């Protein structure tokens, strides 16, 4: 009550308007929920649910905000600022859409580049103006003329820039769009939300709502976070949740999806293990072949076990992916550890080698895969060429008859996945080396000095100091490399022809979900595969976290 007595009439009016505005917004949100379900029959269910949820949240928070305003509570302001800020952003994006900004990227690419040289003239003009600061003269007249010239150069450069990028066209077109209903809605929205934000930020209003410095700090903190947070919600969390929904539908990305419950997951996980009377018994004799396919079989003497699945490709992909991880991770971590120790030495030229080993990490995967494709070519590839040369040299030198294996790196079922592992390990090793190097440089030198005093050798220091002290780095390297390996795709897609390889020896989970979603029009099923993959990666990472906690010297 004390606070209320200090509120001036104008502030009081603003607060009253805000209470009405909050109530009105809540009412509009409630109305939009009704419209979504009653008037928008053509809208897919998932969109109805999504928009309804958003509207209900606006309705609830706006009503609560109005209530808090009536109590002159600062949380009312916080809610108001948040909702109005979000509303402003939505209207701004909508305005850009109305102005066809999002489909004008080609025009942007084509025209903006033409204007950049003229921006150079502007910069030149700016530097002309700066000359007098670096080379002061006593002649005021010449200084003034230089300033004038600088201004005119800057202005003319800038105008030419605006002319070249067709900014005037843009203004005319952009504002022309606002005469249409969609444009008007966007403008009114921008004005209303903007006005609301402005009035909420007035010191008198803040004071009337008992806003303290810490409240302002919280708001500012969220405001600075908001660009990233909104980007995360819209471009990462949103699609993530959407794919979760799609995983329960038969979505083909084109028609309205139908809800199929757990069917997609059931198909993925529908497997059978059946004992075979004889190891080579046909799958069709023991399972319903219209449903199941043989994934593999295990032989024990004169008996066998058949592993059948409704979706054999998923299980083959899982097998290949796990095999890939099993080999690619150690091969890209262990050599990196050794290499980082070598590169950490003070020998001359080490910086050069650090750069050399890091280069594969920054090269484009597609380019790398194409180069390796040539190297691996069984008939004219360099790898086999050097193997042949080596064998011929050896045979001639020792008069032996070693047969040239002529390895079919990518076309043989036994070597295809290994060929991809080599590329992945080679490419990842450099980046891991840099991470290990950073870790090594954080180990205090005193530890090694003390160990030297105690008579420890190089090997003892490595085992006793380097490895334990590198544990956090190792954990990070192993975790990220494992996650990356579980998502292997590009190398397989580019290198192999067909990507699945002979007898599906190189089909991987991401490749399979890509094939399902983007080539076979099965977005719903592909989403389910993606979520199963997520669970597998999450499980593996969790195990690594637990092992790390148990073994970390930092924890103990």
């Amino acid at each position: 009550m004390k606070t209320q007595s200090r509120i001036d009439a104008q502030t009081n009016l603003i607060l009253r308007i805000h209470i009405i505005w909050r109530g009105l917004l809540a009412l509009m949100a409630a109305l939009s929920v009704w419209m979504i379900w009653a008037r928008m029959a053509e809208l897919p269910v998932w969109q109805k649910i999504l928009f309804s949820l958003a509207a209900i949240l606006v309705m609830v928070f706006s009503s609560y905000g109005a209530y808090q305003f009536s109590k002159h509570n600062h949380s009312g302001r916080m809610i108001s600022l948040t909702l109005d800020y979000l509303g402003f952003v939505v209207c701004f994006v909508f305005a850009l859409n109305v102005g066809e900004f999002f489909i004008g990227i080609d025009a942007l690419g084509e025209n903006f580049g033409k204007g950049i040289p003229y921006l150079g003239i502007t910069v030149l003009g700016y530097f002309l103006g700066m000359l007098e600061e670096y080379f002061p003269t006593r002649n005021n007249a010449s200084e003034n003329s230089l300033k004038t010239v600088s201004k005119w150069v800057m202005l003319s450069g800038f105008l030419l820039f605006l002319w070249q990028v067709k900014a005037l066209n843009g203004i005319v077109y952009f504002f022309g769009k606002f005469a249409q209903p969609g444009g008007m809605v966007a403008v009114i929205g921008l004005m209303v939300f903007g006005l609301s934000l402005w009035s909420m930020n007035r010191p008198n209003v803040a004071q009337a709502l008992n806003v303290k410095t810490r409240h302002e700090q919280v708001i500012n903190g969220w405001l600075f976070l908001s660009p990233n947070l909104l980007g995360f919600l819209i471009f990462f969390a949103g699609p993530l949740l959407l794919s979760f929904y799609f995983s329960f539908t038969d979505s083909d990305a084109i028609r309205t999806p139908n809800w199929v419950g757990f069917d997609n997951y059931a198909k993925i996980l529908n497997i059978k293990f059946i004992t075979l009377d004889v190891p080579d018994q046909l799958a069709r004799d023991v399972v319903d072949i219209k449903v199941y396919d043989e994934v593999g079989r295990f032989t024990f003497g004169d008996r066998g076990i058949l592993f059948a699945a409704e979706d054999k490709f998923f299980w083959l992909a899982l097998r290949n992916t796990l095999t890939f991880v099993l080999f690619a991770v150690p091969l890209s971590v262990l050599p990196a550890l050794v290499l980082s120790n070598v590169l950490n030495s003070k020998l001359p030229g080490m910086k050069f080698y650090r750069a050399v080993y890091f280069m594969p990490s920054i090269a484009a995967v597609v380019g790398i895969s194409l180069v390796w494709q040539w190297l691996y070519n069984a008939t004219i590839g360099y790898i086999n060429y050097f193997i042949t040369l080596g064998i011929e040299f050896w045979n001639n030198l020792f008069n032996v008859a070693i047969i040239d294996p002529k390895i079919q790196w990518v076309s043989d079922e036994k070597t295809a996945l290994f060929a991809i592992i080599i590329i992945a390990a080679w490419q990842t090793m450099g980046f891991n080396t840099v991470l290990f190097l950073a870790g090594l440089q954080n180990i205090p030198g005193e530890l090694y000095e003390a160990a030297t005093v105690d008579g420890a050798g190089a090997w003892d220091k490595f085992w006793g100091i380097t490895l334990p002290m590198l544990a956090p780095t190792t954990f990070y390297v192993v975790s990220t490399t494992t996650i990356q390996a579980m998502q292997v795709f590009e190398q397989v897609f580019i290198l192999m022809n067909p990507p699945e390889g002979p007898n599906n020896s190189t089909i991987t989970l991401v490749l399979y979900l890509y094939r399902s979603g983007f080539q076979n029009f099965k977005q719903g099923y592909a989403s389910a595969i993606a979520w199963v993959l997520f669970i597998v990666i999450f499980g593996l990472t969790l195990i690594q976290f637990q092992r790390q906690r148990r073994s970390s010297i930092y924890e103990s």
Partner: protein
Amino acid sequence: MKKNLLLKIMGLVIIASFVLTACGSPAATEAPEATEAPAMTEAPAATEAPATEASSADVALRWRTRPDNQEEIDVYSKISTELDAQLDGITLTYEPGGSEGSNYQDQLRAEVAAGTAPDVFWIPGTDVADFATRGLILNAADLAAATDGYTATDFYEGPMYHLTYNPETGASGDGSGAVWGLPRDVSTFALYINLDLIAEAGAADPRELAANGEWDWEAFLEVSQATRALGSDIYGYGASAWWGPYGVWLNASGGGFFTEDRTACNLNSAESLAGLDFQRSLYQDYDVAVPYGEDPEPGFRAGKVAMFQNGRWATPGVRTVDFNWDVVELPAGPNGTAGNWLFWGAYVINANTEHPEEAWALVQALTTAETQGKVAALGANIPSRVSQEALDAFLTFTPPANNQAFLNGIDPSAAPTAEGPLWAGSWPQFDQIMGPAIQGVLTGSTTVDDFGATICDEANKAFNQ
């Protein structure tokens, strides 16, 4: 302070101009529908965008096809410009698609799903059913019926069977009630032969054998073995790893991928397995072929492969080699034919186009004998119109000297199997099952018997249950 303020203002104006440049392109300002369309976010808005030069009365159309190289892009761009001038009231924008098959199709599918695909686009024959049954391409039957002089028989029968197939009635041809598009061109396989290697090996010239009617699997194997004997790095035969090359061996022995009505798998028939077994023997028993899965084209161009099986589309690339070469038709198999394919792809109309009539006019213009002749002159493909004039012209597009080998491949007497979609199933799914399994056989990790015992159990799942 003033300077700082000036810089800040200029910075803001630059950011604003970033937005305005995107909005203020001539495309956006001059597109006729832009001011009329209430739903600015819908696909047609993108369709309108490229109409940079459109007069206010013109209808702007985007069209796309898959070129294999820059020369083809140039030819298609030129054709687009010429048709733009020729078609009244239509302004065209040509968009070259990806150069790799999968990229082109994947990108196109994504754009179709997003509603931003062009008005007219090319798709391979195998995709027609998938696009048609999902309602992604327009059935132009009504437009075709109202067009003077249009008849499906102007084009090769194989492609038109599928392009006029009505999935509801099962009818095909003129009056079936379906026209999904018109074929851009046709192609077929031949063997690109390294004449120097064959001469060096002392083997018979395959062209002469073909002319004498002696070019069969046995003769093919003899030439392959003779050239393979030239050195451990010389191969008698090479083919790429996809369904086309291995399919011909199955076709030539009387088998094939599907049953005659294309409603079930036929990979396990005795004829199909016999054809597959002969091909397997080339890789595994006789060791005359570039290992399956390895790209044979670099080897052929390096002069280390005597016979390279590929389509007409490989001709521009082969023309750059520095040895004597020519082409010969595929050898005849046990059933007396080479089992060759009639490859084709079609221009189809986006089901969401706002201008179906203009799009149909464009499809027709893109498939006239004149337009096809311009594309065929590059040497990469054969006109899809059945016309002696077109075939005569094709023979002049040399090298290779023996262009007739390609025409023999598509001649009805050679009974080529038309590439085609699966109206009763999913071709991509079938291919996904078949490809790796056949590769397993040809690389020696699966026996033909094991393949035959299980393949159709799996592949039949690609057909509608």
